[in-house]
């Protein structure tokens, strides 16, 4: 389901049109916000189609809910109908890197039921979709995979893409606003309950209610956000040691902390009465 902004007349309108599209896939809805720029319509739509295909291919290979997917078969040790897709090895390599980078707090091999790369796959798929859009020549685009988003370019001249981080329990409030330099991923227990497993104990982890990680790669940010949600402050230390990744977490008691480079947008620029700002008092 898509909608288009005003057809751009070439006479510099102050309003840049944005094309929005919603794609239900991977158990959520992935939204696209795209600046078509000077790209002809046909190329624009084919780029979008290719981006969507990336998402659906990822779902077909990695879905742990579809018993026919190669990863599902891998998990239960069933025979594969053919050779494993190259994507499986690529994701496994990323998972190994993420495990090392997160100090072991993200560990798909320690998940109940077998190897489960779900914490990284969504970000990796969105990365792939965004790359397709970039290669097609679009000036700017943002892809939001149900809360984990990646973007490039400028939505309006001189502006950066901005994302609000949902407040875990305060309705109508944003916990913070972050500038999207490349990727923002958030993980939390307030939507699906205790589904984040602590790899050290095999039990649900509860050290953070909401964890956000920013960085150049959404795949890694996705995995690190999962690690941060499970590991809390200990995982934040591991992320702080990483060069281009930053984290921000909200603990169950309401207190917050973040790494030094986290790109908060100061409240003054946000001009909203209901935004709580960077460091709200704990409840």
């Amino acid at each position, binding site marked *: 389901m898509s*909608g288009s902004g005003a057809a751009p007349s070439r006479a510099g309108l102050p309003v840049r049109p944005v094309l929005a599209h*919603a794609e239900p896939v991977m158990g*959520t*809805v992935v939204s696209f916000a795209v600046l078509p720029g000077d790209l002809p319509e046909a190329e624009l739509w084919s780029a979008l189609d290719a981006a969507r295909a990336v998402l659906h291919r990822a779902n077909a290979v990695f879905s742990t809910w579809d018993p026919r997917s190669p990863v599902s078969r891998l998990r239960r040790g069933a025979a594969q109908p053919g050779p494993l897709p190259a994507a499986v090895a690529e994701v496994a390599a990323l998972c190994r890197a993420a495990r090392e980078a997160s100090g072991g707090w993200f560990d798909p091999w320690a998940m109940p039921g077998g190897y489960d790369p779900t914490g990284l796959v969504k970000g990796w798929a969105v990365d792939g979709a965004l790359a397709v859009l970039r290669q097609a020549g679009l000036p700017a685009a943002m892809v939001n995979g149900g809360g984990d988003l990646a973007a490039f370019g400028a939505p309006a001249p001189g502006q950066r893409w901005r994302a609000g981080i*949902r407040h875990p329990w305060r309705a109508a*409030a*944003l916990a913070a606003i972050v500038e999207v330099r490349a990727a923002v991923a958030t993980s939390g227990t307030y939507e699906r309950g205790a589904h984040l497993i602590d790899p050290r104990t095999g039990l649900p982890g509860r050290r953070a209610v909401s964890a956000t990680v920013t960085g150049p790669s959404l795949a890694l940010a996705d995995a690190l956000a999962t690690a941060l949600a499970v590991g809390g402050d200990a995982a934040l230390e591991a992320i702080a040691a990483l060069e281009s990744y930053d984290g921000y977490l909200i603990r169950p008691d309401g207190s917050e902390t973040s790494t030094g480079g986290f790109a908060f947008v100061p409240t003054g620029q946000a001009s*909203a009465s209901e935004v709580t700002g960077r460091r709200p008092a704990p409840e």
Partner: protein
Amino acid sequence: MKTAPWLVLAGAVAGFLGVLGFHRPASANALGAAAGPTAAARASVPAAGPAASAPGARSAATPAASSRAPATAAAGRATGPIEQYGYGELTARVTVSAGRITDVQLPVIRTAEQYSQQLASQVIPLLRREVLAAQSANINAVSGATYTSQAYALSVQAALDKLHFK
């Protein structure tokens, strides 16, 4: 009555086929009817444009809009597309006045199954306020733990984008 089972069977087949034949067109009509009540509001506000129709039809309406006040949208209503995200359908009606969202309503809620039930009773009222907060914070997206209410937010975002709202 010896023929009793046959009579029941004959009736069952007839009833089954009857409902099967009747049901499909009805649900399409229901979808159309859902978009109906907002059509009148939409028609009177050219800037808003028919939000629920195909993209192609949109561009026909917009050249008129581009000649009007550019940066902010005029007052009007737009209904986001009806999102089918699994077990229910959501669509959002956004009221804009002087370039700001003043109200968000869900004129059509068809819910069944777990997620949708919880959506209807708990999450949607929260989201309404969240949307109003989000637009005043001037953001393009919301990052959070994944949830199907994404469809709702997306409907609003789609509606916003159609209104050229930034």
